[in-house]
């Protein structure tokens, strides 16, 4: 199949990206503004020999995804704020049991049922800390339909490589917008598969440390028997309360991600080389910010943009570098200030961090960002 150009919604491009990355199992419960993902999955998965199942709720959806992944399938689900809340407990289970899976959260206004059909960026911290207990996490974002495709591929690849749940945060604007996207020939898509055991089943130690910190993962049903639990476990997967086993386990859980921050981080810069004011944005707001930078430049303001494509682990190196040179770091967000707190933490007084927060269900406009730039520069 050659590459083909289509007009797709961000949600639909997620499905195409998932299938290109090898996803063959989807369990979900429809919710606006993510429903088109379930709809298209129900149509596309059977075409490629995959399985789509509509579950009774979001708790069951993520549980089924974890089960499918343990059996060897690349699996995902998609939801929005209310459903994302319900998935949190089992996202922690996937993290603890090191089960690769992808969860797409198309953000709408909240809290609670909130604003079903309107955009927001309110789940950034929930994606980071929604499940209990200290844990590492990978969270990606996208601001266009082509990015929805490629970030979904990336979500699967990172998830498989590090045996961890990966969350892709979209918003109603990006999920529902239609744009042209070139769907590549599947052979042109780089696909990463989870590490598999090379030893015979009787020698397999499921949670043994490795140089990368990621143990090989055996699919259930192929003779490799092991125990899977949400309790802290020893290298064989059985619950332990021995500090000399707990410590190394937790250390490895974090190390496998933290040792690879440079590979996981992803951002794009626009006009930042001489920028006095750098806008740090993600998702739909990054598009407003790009236009704001162009408008500001026309008015003689040296503006630039740092677009975050990886939200967690936070893009510390790029922000530190830009904070050294810029007078102002402006963080526009459709929440009351979630990524801006990280920017302040990393900034450490180097530059001045200014926030622009909007929670009325509408997209921040370029004009609002330019106005804030002018105000901040005096």
């Amino acid at each position, binding site marked *: 199949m050659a590459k083909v*150009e289509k*007009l797709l919604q961000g949600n639909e491009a997620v499905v195409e990206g998932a299938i290109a990355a090898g996803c063959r199992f989807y369990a979900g419960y429809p919710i606006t503004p993510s429903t088109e993902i379930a709809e298209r999955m129900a149509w596309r998965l059977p075409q490629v020999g995959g399985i789509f199942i509509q579950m009774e709720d979001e708790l069951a959806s993520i549980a089924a995804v974890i089960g499918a992944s343990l059996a060897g399938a690349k699996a995902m689900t998609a939801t929005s704020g209310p459903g994302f809340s319900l998935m949190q407990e089992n996202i922690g289970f996937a993290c603890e049991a090191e089960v690769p899976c992808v969860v797409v959260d198309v953000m709408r206004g909240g809290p609670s049922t909130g604003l079903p*059909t309107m955009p927001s960026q309110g789940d950034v911290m929930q994606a980071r800390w929604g499940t209990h207990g200290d844990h590492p996490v990978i969270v990606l974002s996208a601001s266009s339909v082509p990015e929805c495709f490629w970030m979904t591929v990336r979500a699967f690849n990172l998830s498989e490589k590090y045996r961890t749940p990966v969350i892709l945060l979209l918003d109603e604007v990006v999920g529902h917008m239609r*744009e042209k996207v070139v769907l590549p020939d599947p052979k042109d898509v780089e696909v990463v598969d989870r590490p598999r055991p090379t030893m015979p089943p009787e020698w397999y130690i499921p949670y043994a440390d490795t140089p990368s910190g990621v143990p090989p993962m055996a699919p259930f049903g192929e003779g490799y028997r092991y125990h899977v639990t949400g309790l802290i476990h020893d290298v064989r997967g059985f619950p332990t309360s021995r500090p000399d086993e707990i410590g190394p386990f937790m250390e490895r859980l974090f190390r496998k991600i933290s040792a690879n921050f440079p590979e996981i981080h992803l951002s794009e810069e626009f006009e930042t080389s001489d920028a006095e004011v750098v806008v740090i944005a993600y998702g739909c707001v990054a*598009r407003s910010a790009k236009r704001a930078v162009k408008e500001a430049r026309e008015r003689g303001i040296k503006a630039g943009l740092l677009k975050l494509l990886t939200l967690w682990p936070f893009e510390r190196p790029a922000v530190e570098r830009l904070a050294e040179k810029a007078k102002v770091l402006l963080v526009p967000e459709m929440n009351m200030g979630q990524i801006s707190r990280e920017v302040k933490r990393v900034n450490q007084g180097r530059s001045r961090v200014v926030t622009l927060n909007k929670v009325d269900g509408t997209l921040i406009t370029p004009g609002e960002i330019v106005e804030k730039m002018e105000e901040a520069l005096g």
Partner: protein
Amino acid sequence: MERRYEIRLSGYGGQGLILIGIILAEAVGLYEGKQVVQTQSYGPEARGGASRSELVVSDQEIDYPKPLGLDLLLAMNQQSLNLYCGDVKEGGIVVADSTFCDQFPVSRVVKIPFTRLAREQLGREIVANIMALGAVGAVSGIVGFESLKKAVLNRVPKGTEDLNLKALQMGWKLGEKAKRELVKEGREEYIISAEEL
């Protein structure tokens, strides 16, 4: 800054405005090779309520995905016309379904009774949206008829192709005529009545 052409298609939920937004986006994006972003907004209801679909068209990369100042507003009812006429930029144009609009608080307006024409001339009100699409395509000048035709045929249900193409053609002709008159005569408004056909 890139040049943008911005369109909003507005009316009641159920009038098929999101569908014609998708068709127009496919026509200009896939068949005319332009950049296009289509967005939509609707209430939580399945039917009724206000519905709108928006397009930004450009020859270059489109950053901000929503309209900044409308070049063209299609209003399929009075409520939408009242609500959005203020978003039309200077020199922009309104195309209104005069079946449901009788007050026009705008300067440049093309009044066509799409719904009435669809009912009386084609026997099916349901294709009023496709007729409006034809008119919007012709008035905007951003898309050729053949591209629009191809895009319509890709999206409408089997067995309704002829009816939809008739509606599209009718709308296109009326839109072309209206545009010609507006430019030639330098007129501010152009009214098309069913009797003209």
